[in-house]
């Protein structure tokens, strides 16, 4: 670790202690660049949210950072070291992923799925030690899925499934978590619960989180920093939510007509406001 610090200093990134950083990263499939020149950095305990239109390349960036896709140009630094310098087994102890892959695992109980998170730590045959089993059990308690332990992973709801996958990622004891649209299939309550969990994890365990998201209002609520990826495949803007979420920037990012965004969100906020007002009046009149 010490030598990493020195090396990190020499890259001239201003002495920050970011756990993950990309340097003029070109990502895409084969030789076709989808997102060019991405410069990102995320601190421990920080949640970075990737937003941008469909097909802009949010998933592509995530997959490249995760090592699922090869970098076309540029570098991904993990803990200050070039990603390619690590053995893949060592990366697995630092980085956990939760990508959208709706592959039904036949006849796997939720506990088996969560236990797979211990993969990098188990021996030749993947048999769990007592310690591994304790971690699995505690993690399942943490995300409130203990009662699902024996249930078939195929037969639980989307909300439960995301929690199981989150538990699996936590079991990996990562420093970095990469999530691809983890809230997309969930209803509002499950979205909020999931994001609260993630928030707590980042805070308490100092995990750096990078995730992509379509729900702007939730990104606003959750993110420490927001990274905008434009349809042209560029990092348009990266910064704290209050800087990024401006009518002008978001409308341009998603190619919305003037006033449309405001109409949607202020209209919605107004209705919600009325709803809460009405509830207030009703309780008063009682």
């Amino acid at each position, binding site marked *: 670790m010490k030598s990493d610090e020195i090396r990190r200093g020499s890259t001239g990134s201003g002495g920050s202690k970011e756990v993950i950083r990309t340097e003029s990263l070109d990502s895409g499939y084969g030789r076709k660049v989808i997102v060019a020149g991405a410069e990102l950095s995320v601190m421990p305990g920080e949640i970075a949210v990737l937003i941008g239109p469909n097909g802009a390349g949010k998933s592509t960036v995530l997959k490249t950072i*995760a090592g699922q896709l090869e970098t076309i140009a540029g570098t991904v630094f993990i803990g200050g070291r070039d990603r390619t310098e690590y053995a893949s087994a060592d990366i697995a102890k630092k980085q956990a992923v939760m990508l959208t892959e709706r592959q039904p695992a036949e006849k796997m109980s939720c506990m088996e799925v969560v236990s797979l998170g211990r993969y990098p730590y188990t021996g030749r045959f993947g048999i769990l030690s007592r310690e591994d089993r304790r971690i699995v059990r505690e993690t399942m308690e943490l995300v409130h899925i203990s009662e699902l332990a024996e249930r078939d992973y195929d037969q639980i709801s989307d909300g439960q499934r995301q929690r199981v996958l989150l538990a699996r990622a936590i079991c990996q004891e990562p420093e970095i978590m990469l999530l691809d649209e983890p809230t997309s299939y969930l209803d509002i309550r499950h979205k909020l619960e999931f994001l609260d969990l993630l928030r707590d994890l980042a805070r308490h365990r100092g995990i750096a989180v990078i995730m992509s998201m379509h729900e702007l209002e939730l990104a606003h609520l959750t993110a420490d920093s927001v990274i905008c990826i434009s349809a042209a495949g560029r990092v348009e803007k990266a910064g704290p939510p209050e800087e990024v979420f401006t009518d002008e920037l978001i409308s341009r990012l998603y190619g919305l007509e003037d006033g449309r965004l405001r109409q949607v969100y202020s209209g919605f906020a107004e209705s919600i406001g009325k709803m809460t007002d009405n509830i207030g009046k009703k309780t008063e009149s009682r």
Partner: protein
Amino acid sequence: MNNKRIAFCYTALGILLLVLIIMNMLMGSSSMTAGDAFRILFSHDTVSRYGRIVWDIRMPRIIAAALLGGALAVSGFLLQTFFSNPIAGPYILGISSGAKLVVACAMVYALTHGIMLHSFVMIIAAFIGSLAVTAVILLISGKVRSMSVLIVCGVMVGYICSAVTEFLITFADDSNIVNLHNWSMGSFSAVSWENIRVIAPVVAITVILSFLLSKPMNAIQMGEHYAVSVGVNIRAFRTGLIMLSSILSATVTAFAGPISFVGIAAPHLIRSITDTSRPIVMIPQCFLGGSVFCLLCDLLARNLFAPTEMSISSMTAVFGAPVVIAMLIGRKAR
């Protein structure tokens, strides 16, 4: 936990295996009593009529059915993991037929030139055939996303290989042609002790190597992306999986011809009983399950219409195909 189910499954398979071995030993076109069999086994009597039946005919056949049946089931499980599809198997994907074609070529060549083929040569020929068809299937799987289309393509490739084999057999004129024909329909009858001395180590080593891959197999069941993220070297792993599966199905085809459905039915039944798909449980149980399945089918193939013997493949189809159909319906319902 499903440990109880797993233990139950081991016990049940162990008992069934034992019972079927005994039944296979005693029953046949000439039946004998358990006393006869015991006496022959312990006195090493290889000269009397019963002695010759036990030592020269039934014993090698039982061992062959047990080893090759197990090999088929494990081969099927490896393919199912590879394609992440429970309907994949060496027979349905045409891999067995590919092996059959190349072995038939080798046999016809050997027969016309009066050469005796060593067991290893047979396995290598079958292995080449298996790999060739597997390569075709992999090419197709790169082009089509749908698993059912892939399976249909596999069946078609299988038909093509079988048709070419039929041609060969029809036009190769030799007195041994009857043997060749029997073999190409699938049968354990032609397996000799000399064959078993080759089959046993090949199957044992391959199954043990497969077992050593349990851990990455478990990871890939959660998807390829996930396997990569926990540090599985996916290319090496996939190559290993295909090689092992091909060696197993090639060994079966080289000595017993193509045998249908065991590779799908046995793993599916085991999965339903143990309620898990962890490879570390599945691989040994599939092996046992395949053995039991083939011993049962061979017992029936020999005795049902005795003295006429049926091909093992038609027997495994009668039992295996309904299991596969039930599985397909079960999946649709979900």
